[in-house]
């Protein structure tokens, strides 16, 4: 039980009044910057990291943790209230969260997101402390062929966001896949679909596409609706906080989201997006009222938000045990560690136990601080929606372009924002779902790269794809996800609950 003593010591250090103040400042700053659409936690941390350099290691670590969690929560807040996801991992949150906010349930949506983040963060932190070495061995054993199988599983879950028509859903997905081709191909170094424009060589930024499709497309289609859409958003209907029903419906999604997020986040190429897709699809399958999905189901916020946060803690597993920075945020964290002469690697836990446990304790405290700070503010946040529409949408566009410019000050990027915004409008106008476009952009390149890596390593022998037990298990799960409802129907003669939203 040495671990717990070390963790306890870390918590005691982090709880000193001065350090709590740093955590507070970090959470505030992180939320303020993270709320900008297009600026996710990685960029937030990169921008604010210099502020922490001036403090002593303990104070700086805890402020850093605060900024990190603040940045993540800021992204979710923007997703839920303004439908402008700040980062790729909170795109799924926008789907149900914004529907809830428009129905006057923004308060419960923000609350389930904050509490879910806390629950997932806490469980994942304990997981990090107890099982990190075991988890990392399994995670490392994932080869490209296994990741490819994981991508296939993620693809099968996209259909959960398809809406009423398969043709339309697939069309959206393929538009996203085509956009994913843009830029330099990692394996061959060849430019694809770039037409000689240098700004396209790096491909389409996921956040630019998401902000354009969601925020700008939405603004255009609301403006086009003119008087037709003269409904006033009521910021609060019913309780501003979660009621009993909300609690009951949030618990399991939190736990399932954590169970998906932590291990996938710990995989070197797992990422935080895939667990959010999987969690959304899973909750939609398991939900007793599947017709609420697409209209503001709290499970669709609770699960993916927990998955997102658990994945963020999962990323620390390879970082702290092996020194592998497997995400942009982790890479910046690594830069942060190096400020204190700390070199994450296999020896970190033995050579610098104080700082490691201090960091874990800091994450814990920052997460708690976020909850304490933000729950009382939920009422204030949802008031944003009471701003008259001309100003609200004017402000949304100001912040959407600010976030895009801040991440990449280029006029071409703003041009893309405009073009994809028009695409978002057309998709909405003709009843095409938005989310599969973004999912295609994320999963397309990932799956292509993993498949090509696997086949390059095997020198072109496709058998390699079906040799590993991990890959076979994942394929079996995909098949179950695709054909499960059909089998259910054949056996029982009833339609599976998931079919309920098909017209």
């Amino acid at each position, binding site marked *: 039980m040495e671990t717990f003593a070390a963790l306890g010591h870390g918590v005691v250090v982090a709880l000193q009044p001065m350090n709590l103040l740093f955590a507070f400042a970090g959470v505030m700053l992180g939320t303020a910057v993270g709320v900008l659409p297009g600026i996710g936690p990685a960029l937030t941390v990169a921008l604010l990291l210099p502020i922490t350099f001036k403090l002593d290691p303990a104070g700086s670590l805890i402020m850093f943790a605060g900024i990190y969690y603040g940045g993540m929560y800021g992204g979710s807040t923007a997703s839920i209230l303004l439908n402008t996801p700040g980062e790729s991992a909170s795109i799924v949150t926008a789907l149900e969260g914004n529907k809830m906010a428009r129905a006057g349930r923004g308060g419960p949506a923000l609350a389930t997101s904050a509490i879910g983040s806390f629950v997932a963060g806490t469980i994942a932190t304990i997981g990090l402390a107890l099982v990190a070495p075991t988890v990392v061995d399994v995670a490392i054993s994932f080869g490209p062929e296994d990741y490819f199988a994981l991508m296939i599983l993620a693809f099968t879950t996209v259909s959960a966001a398809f809406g009423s028509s398969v043709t339309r859903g697939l069309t959206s997905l393929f538009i996203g896949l085509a956009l994913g081709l843009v830029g330099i191909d990692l394996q061959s170094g060849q430019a694809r679909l770039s037409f000689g424009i240098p700004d396209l060589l790096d491909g389409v930024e996921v956040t630019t596409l998401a902000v354009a499709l969601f925020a700008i497309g939405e603004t255009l289609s609301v403006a086009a609706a003119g008087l037709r859409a003269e409904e006033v958003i009521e910021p609060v209907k019913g309780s501003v906080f979660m009621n009993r029903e909300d609690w009951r419906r949030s618990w399991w999604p939190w736990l399932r989201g954590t169970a998906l997020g932590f291990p996938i986040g710990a995989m070197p190429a797992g990422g935080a997006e895939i667990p959010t897709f999987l969690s959304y699809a899973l909750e939609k399958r398991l939900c007793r009222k599947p017709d609420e999905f697409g209209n503001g189901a709290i499970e669709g916020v609770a699960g993916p938000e927990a998955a997102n946060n658990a994945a963020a803690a999962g990323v620390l597993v390879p970082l702290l045990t092996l020194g592998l*920075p497997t995400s942009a945020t982790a890479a910046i964290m690594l830069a942060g560690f190096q400020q204190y002469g700390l070199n994450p690697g296999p020896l970190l836990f033995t050579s610098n136990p104080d700082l490691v446990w201090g960091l874990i304790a800091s994450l814990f405290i920052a997460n708690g601080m976020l909850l304490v700070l933000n729950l009382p503010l939920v009422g204030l946040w949802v008031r944003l929606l009471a701003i008259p529409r001309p100003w609200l949408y004017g402000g949304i566009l100001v912040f959407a372009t600010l976030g895009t410019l801040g991440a990449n000050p280029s006029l071409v990027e703003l041009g893309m924002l405009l073009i994809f915004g028009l695409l978002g409008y057309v998709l909405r106008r003709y009843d095409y779902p938005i989310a599969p476009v973004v999912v295609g952009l994320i999963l397309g390149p990932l799956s292509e790269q993993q498949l090509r890596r696997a086949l390059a390593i095997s020198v072109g022998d496709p058998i390699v794809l079906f040799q590993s037990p991990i890959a076979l298990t994942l394929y079996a799960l995909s098949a179950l996800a695709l054909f499960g409802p059909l089998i259910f129907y054949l056996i029982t003669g009833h339609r599976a609950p998931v079919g309920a939203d098909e017209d």
Partner: protein
Amino acid sequence: MKHIVRGALLAAALALPFGAASAQVDELKIMAPAAPGGGWDQTARAMQQVLQGEKIVSNVQVMNVPGAGGTIGLAQFVNADKGDPSALIVGGYVMVGAIITNKSPVTLDQVTPIARLTGEYEAIAVPADSPLKSMEDLVAALKANPQKVSWAGGSAGGTDHITAGLIAKAIGVDPTKVNYIAFSGGGESLASILGGKVTVGISSLSEFDAQAKAGKLRLLGVSSAERLPEAKDVPTFKESGVDVEIQNWRMVAAAPGISPEQKKALNDTIAKMVNSQGWKDMLAQKGWANTYLAGADFEEQLAKDITATKAILKDIGLAQ
């Protein structure tokens, strides 16, 4: 057409008339042609911190223009900051390759090189239980069947890929047959090496250092001219009979079209920075090696690197 319009707009955006053409440098704006957080950005921000902290230059601003291996920032810099004695750009060896593979209309010939600041060397690593014990074993395996040796490294056409190509070429193996697997992040490629998914890994030494010290990886060789102080027992490629030497350096350059006096003033400013205690502390803290090289020596080295890189990229099949 699009090019011209965009170029003109950017030129208009950035052609700020900074008057003072005196020898004294009291204002600098450093462009980091990368997103915040990366190596070039860190270099630019480290310079900012030291130049201001040591009171060498009172006002230093850093601006990020990410994209396409730094070539987007470089194009903007060349077009917009022409003749501006307060403008600097951070860059590095990666840019040399990116200019060639991206067919960038702007090249490093168009900027005024000031100095090389820091650099890292490439290293080859295998998992601890790999049958390859030395560089000689690797050479033998490559000669037997280059396709059976998979290399994990950064993006295609980058420093890692170039080094792998140079090694193949040096031992008389067809560089286009190198089975190079590109990974997007250091963590991902390291994981594939540790997991034994690939035969060897190639990256900068600092990426492998911690793993090697922990005994999880074995280093076969490094790309420096002499053995490195941080890895004394790792032979250089040359010692193992592979005639390859490469440094992944970072440099600072000034705008095109500045006068010799203005260039001298910038040279002096950077020299003052490199010699300051603040810069030494910064390098130590970041773990960067000081490979400062200025003036004609640097320009000569740069020209040599450009020629060699062009040749090898052509051999790998990434440039025409």
